[in-house]
């Protein structure tokens, strides 16, 4: 655009058009963010809760007022300090040794694909890499390293659990979304619209309601799941009290909530794949599986990658559902974060249960930086900053 407008007139138009968005964002998003960074540099807490009279000097008599933290970055030191002690660094090294084979495989696969026009089959490299990692895990006693870091730092264990959660959820989102989308895209299935409508239900019903219903399903005595298991003579586990089963439960609930989004995205992408590609493949005698791996999956990639990155980010920040189902429990011991106490739940508890405003501020800033880089990374897939004219 800008065919007929140049100079200040054009600038004015742009300013007027973008002003509503920018003003809204500045007042209620940008300002809170900056304010939060400010708080993270002070000692504001339950005991120092009043706005400062003189922020530079904490008057020992009026301890109720907050002032700059001593040292200024003290709250950040509290988060990262325990992760860089000598023992912790040694533990990091051990963990790095365990994942090194996987990094190597990723690098090698990319390299091979770049080098040759018809790259050799590399799919079996991954299982091999994983097997080597598993052996190394035992050799370097990685579980001891994790235990050491978890004992040293709440931040580590919360992040560890959250990453584990994301890793456990995303493949299932994709898998279930893909299977259902493939079936619904099959020309010989009848009443597609009806099936699709029913399958979208979990996305459409308010999640705080379904969270409470699932919370009931997973109860030990009265819960529907254990009652059904009882019919088969199985004594179900105490889902929400057992650390591992509680984790499984929140994974299951999140899969149930999220597969419709993937199904819709994949279905949309499937419909844009030209049919003649399959017809040509069929003429060449390609099997169903070959068509899937050579045509469908590669062509789904541009639509699915952003969906994966976006839902990884939202799963990382999951709050409502997990909060209503487990409230971060079951606890592992006094004062330690629970097994399902993921990033946001830990932050919420620091803020509202502990009134540790400054600590929560520093924590929020760290999470923000992490998420920001994750978002920048996702840009590589979405090309969102490009304009229509590009």
């Amino acid at each position: 655009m800008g065919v007929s407008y140049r100079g200040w007139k054009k600038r004015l138009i742009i300013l007027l058009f973008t002003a509503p968005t920018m003003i809204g964002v500045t007042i209620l998003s940008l300002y809170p963010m900056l304010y939060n960074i400010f708080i993270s540099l002070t000692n504001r807490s339950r005991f120092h809760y009043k706005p400062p009279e003189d922020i530079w000097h904490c008057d020992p008599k009026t301890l109720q007022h907050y002032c700059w933290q001593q040292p200024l970055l003290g709250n950040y030191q509290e988060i990262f300090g325990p992760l860089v002690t000598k023992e912790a660094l040694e533990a990091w090294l051990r963990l790095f040794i365990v994942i090194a084979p996987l990094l190597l495989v990723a690098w090698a696969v990319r390299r091979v694909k770049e080098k040759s026009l018809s790259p050799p089959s590399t799919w079996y490299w991954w299982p091999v890499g994983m097997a080597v990692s598993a052996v190394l895990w035992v050799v370097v006693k990685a579980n001891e390293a994790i235990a050491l870091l978890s004992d040293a730092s709440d931040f580590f264990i919360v992040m560890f659990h959250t990453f584990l959660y994301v890793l456990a959820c995303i493949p299932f989102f994709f898998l279930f979304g893909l299977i259902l989308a493939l079936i619904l895209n099959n020309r010989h299935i009848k009443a597609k619209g009806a099936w699709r409508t029913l399958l979208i239900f979990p996305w459409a019903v308010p999640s705080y309601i379904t969270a409470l219903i699932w919370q009931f399903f997973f109860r030990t005595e009265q819960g529907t799941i254990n009652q059904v298991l009882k019919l088969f003579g199985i004594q179900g586990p105490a889902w929400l009290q057992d650390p591992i089963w509680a984790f499984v439960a929140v994974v299951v609930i999140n899969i149930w909530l999220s597969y419709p989004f993937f199904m819709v995205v994949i279905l949309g992408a499937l419909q844009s794949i030209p049919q003649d590609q399959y017809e040509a493949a069929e003429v060449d005698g390609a099997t169903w599986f070959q068509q899937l791996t050579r045509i469908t999956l590669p062509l789904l990639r541009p639509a699915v990658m952003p969906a994966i990155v976006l839902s990884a980010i939202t799963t990382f920040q999951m709050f409502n559902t997990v909060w209503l189902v487990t409230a971060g429990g079951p606890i592992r011991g006094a004062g330690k974060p629970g097994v399902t106490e993921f990033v946001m739940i830990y932050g919420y508890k620091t803020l509202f249960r502990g009134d540790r405003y400054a600590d929560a501020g520093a924590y929020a800033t760290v999470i923000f930086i992490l998420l920001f880089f994750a978002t920048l990374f996702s840009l590589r897939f979405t090309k969102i900053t490009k304009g229509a004219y590009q």
Partner: protein
Amino acid sequence: MRRPSRLTLVLLYLVLIIAVFIAIYPIWFVFLAALRPGQRLLTLNLVGMFLPVEVTWENFHAILFDMPFLTWLKNSLFIATLTTVFCVSLATTGAFAFSRFQFKGRETALILLLAIQSFPGILALVPIAQILRSLGLFGTHWGLILAYSTGTLVFTTWNLKGYFDTIPIEIEEAALIDGATPLQAFLQIGLPLARPALAVTALFGFLAGWNEYIMAEVMLVGKEEMFTLPVGLTHLAQDMEIPWGLFAAGALLISVPTLLVFLSLQRYLESGLTLGGVKG
């Protein structure tokens, strides 16, 4: 595509049936609990877990007339509607400009928006509460509306921009050459063409206000007559003796309209949800 064998088709339908059962059982379960006399979710009657055996409307009557449900409904409708209006109207012109105009700082502004989006909302509750307090809006519905519409603003701007990107720019350029002003080009060409994206954006704005729980819980604490539906219902479910029948009836009354709106807009979901411009 070859016609799949009969066995394959049967298997495909079987997968669909199991998936649909899992997808709707939790909602069906709420329906059963709402119809069941008394305040219990559990029934040891196996048939009762899947089919309505005793039917009563007393739970619906009780939640509608003995509880402040209708007040909560009114609050939620008010908040969600205004959130929709605000977030769509605040985002549309910006999204249009980001898609259509070439200017210095455009990319920076877009990345700034993204950066802001990555700030964890729950952890910004304290500063947001502080601003709303200084505006005199803390603990009011207007405060929530303001917080919700700006909270979804980045997503809405992105999504609309992504959709505007897919509309050929030549149409507007032709209009401009014919003497239309940019505002006319936006109102008479851009907006009507972006209808699917506007529908989806409005839907997400509405759901943001309709479903949000934790901010409302923090801001409206202790004022039962100001509660939104999510706050009111979760309070019901967190009582020591949970009136499950009431909860279920209320949950159903909320879910059905949401479901209907969502499903009626679902044909727009595929085309209107651009995931930031991947499509097209």
